[in-house]
């Protein structure tokens, strides 16, 4: 994993982030908002980005790090080009979404929370996307795939491999 984590933020990204910090600095409780925007800009929140935020807001890096690691949506590592998120909410779980996750892991040869070597896919699990009527579901980027069986997984993943 580590070799993919090398930070290669651009000056343009940094400028954008600094603009966000300036805009939001006076909003009470702005840290969460800035982190959300920063993750939108960089795709994840490596320590370098956290440092820019801590300096910009004149707060300690440990405070920023504390908030980042508290919330599951903030990620310290980069995500794949295609973000797979298998729902493990109750409605999906009782309909066998654990088997869907197993199959995705098997197909890609990585575990939940990891990113493939080529950076094409990353797998996460989530708790309920609210499409319980379609259980079990998984999301790839913003697309929801519902009423899944393990057999359907390969075909769905192949679609994303082709557009590489």
């Amino acid at each position, binding site marked *: 994993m580590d070799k993919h984590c090398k930070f290669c933020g651009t000056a343009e990204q940094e400028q954008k982030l600094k603009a966000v910090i300036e805009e939001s600095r006076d909003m009470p409780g702005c840290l969460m908002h800035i982190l959300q925007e920063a993750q939108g800009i960089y795709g994840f929140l490596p320590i370098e980005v956290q440092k820019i935020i801590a300096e910009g807001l004149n707060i300690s890096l440990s405070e920023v790090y504390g908030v980042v690691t508290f919330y*599951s949506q903030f990620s310290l590592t980069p995500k794949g080009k295609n973000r797979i998120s298998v729902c493990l909410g109750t409605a999906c779980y009782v309909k066998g979404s654990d088997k869907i996750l197993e199959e995705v892991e098997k197909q890609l040869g990585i575990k939940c929370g990891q990113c493939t070597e080529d950076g094409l896919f990353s797998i996460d699990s989530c708790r309920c996307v609210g*499409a*319980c009527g379609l259980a079990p579901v998984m999301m790839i980027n913003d697309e929801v795939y519902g009423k899944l069986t393990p057999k359907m997984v390969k075909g769905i993943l192949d679609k994303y491999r082709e557009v590489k």
Partner: protein
Amino acid sequence: MTTQQLDAIRESKSDLIKVRRIVKEEGEKLAKKTGYRKQVLVCGGTGCTSSHSMKVIEQLEKSIKELGLKDVLVVKTGCFGLCALGPIMIVYPEGAFYSQVTPEHAKVIAEKHLVKGGEMVREYLYKGTLAEDGKVIPFAETPFYKKQMRIALRNCGVIAPEDIEEAIAAGDYAALEKVLTTMTPDDVINEMLASGLRGRGGAGFPTGRKWSFAKASQSDVKYVCCNADEGDPGAFMDRSVLEGDPHCVLEAMAIAGYAIGSNNGFIYVRAEYPVAVERLQIAVKQAREYGLLGKNILDSGFDFDIEIRLGAGAFVCGEETALMRSIEGHRGEPRPRPPFPAVKGLFDKPTILNNVETWANVNPIIMNGAAWFSSIGTKTSSGTKVFALGGKITNVGLVEVPMGTTLREIVEEIGGGIPGGKKFKAAQTGGPSGGCIPASCIDVPIDYDSLIAIGSMMGSGGMIILDEDTCMVDISKFYLEFTADESCGKCTPCRIGTKRLLQLLTKITEGKGEPDDINKIQELSEHMRQSSLCALGQTAPNPILSTLRYFRDEYDEHINKKVCRAGVCKALFTYHIIADKCRGCTLCARNCPVQAISGALKQPHVIDTAKCVKCGLCIANCKFDAIERI
């Protein structure tokens, strides 16, 4: 905006909305007045958009244009409730209810039904609306809708949530108008107290009392907050309200602001709900433009504005003090109470926090009166409750029923029973804080107190139906994995207790359980209940305790006989081929992902249990029932 202007908007579109509420002849007459011969409502909630309702709308608009049907209106609404059969589309004034609509269906419906003199396309109608004699019955009379009573969801699936004028015409902001022009803050609080409305987020604290405490607190600044951090897995009530009728929440928060003396509101909403977030943002923007938020609302001199804050995926932020810490931009950790938020809450100022569904009940209470509201439901639990019905049930979806409705009515009538002829085993309510209601309690009325008496809780409204294929030990383990993962780590009983409970349960599901484990679980659970800082830890043992209460035999089987009767706990069974029944078709061997099955064509096959990963594909594929699980 003045009250006259508000009334004018309501009047101008009221017929349009009325057509969608009354089905039958009256609707036809009214439809003529509106200038729209047909109105086509398509669900744009998360459930239906996931099954591509947006493509249905695109196709519909295209076909309508091609056919030159200028008197047909297409409306993208919120959730109709029957999510399992989405995308859903209703055509008014006749109220034709189409289910599982594809773009192709939409094209045919436009050509055959929406054209002048067109007829309903029967084969695409929801099967529940086709009576045995061939007649089409109104969808409101189908088993799924008949026993429902929509108060909180009154406008969901009726209006276009992104159009404030439709919301106004459907009755939103009428209560705010009434409050600002005819009621004092005390009147409002008294009405809320008399209504008996209790918090719909789970704990069931009387809303009116919460408001009266905050009113009594002296402070220059006070806050009104909305908890839209619906983190309970399998629950989507609040999301549906936000997606279907966001204005009702804004209005109710303004009413509360007037009642307690606050000018600032915050909505804390899950970032995992992109559609709800977008509609809320649109709603706030429109409400400001129309002067229904901001300075001097309806010329009353009352100021109120709302900010939206996004969560970032932490279940504990549904707890009130944790939620406020998160809005303040910190780690969302709860703090000890007292002081309660009504005294010292957000930014250390007096704050009230109610969840979305609670807010959705405020307008009807103000408009129809507390006496009307408290006449619905039971004595101690007035009104209705929205449930997200999921799991092993035919009609997965969103239902709103009067308090006191029995579980049997919800499962068998509204829910349409268990699919595949399986047996009902239990209903899980209250999510990770709640418990399981076993089949023996299926006639218990659903209200706050009855559920607590049988060891579960109302919770926010997730209701997951479990059948005989669900292992109760495994489901407890599932919830403990959740709470162990989501425990914020601030207090020791919850941080370590959830981990230890999970270890014990894992041990049992792996066939390593010892008889003393149950005692350990019970003792630890009691400590966690008494000493955890917030409700997350205090209620985390509930799923285990309630399953122990009703399904103790399953725990004993796991521990003593090393058997999982539901066939879920993989360590406790193996697959075998019954030689007499096997025809040697090779289907199982071809499908086995680990090549654990061998045998020649037309000869009985054998499973190598050492290789088998117990995925169950063979048993699912076998056409001769030749594979058994022991």
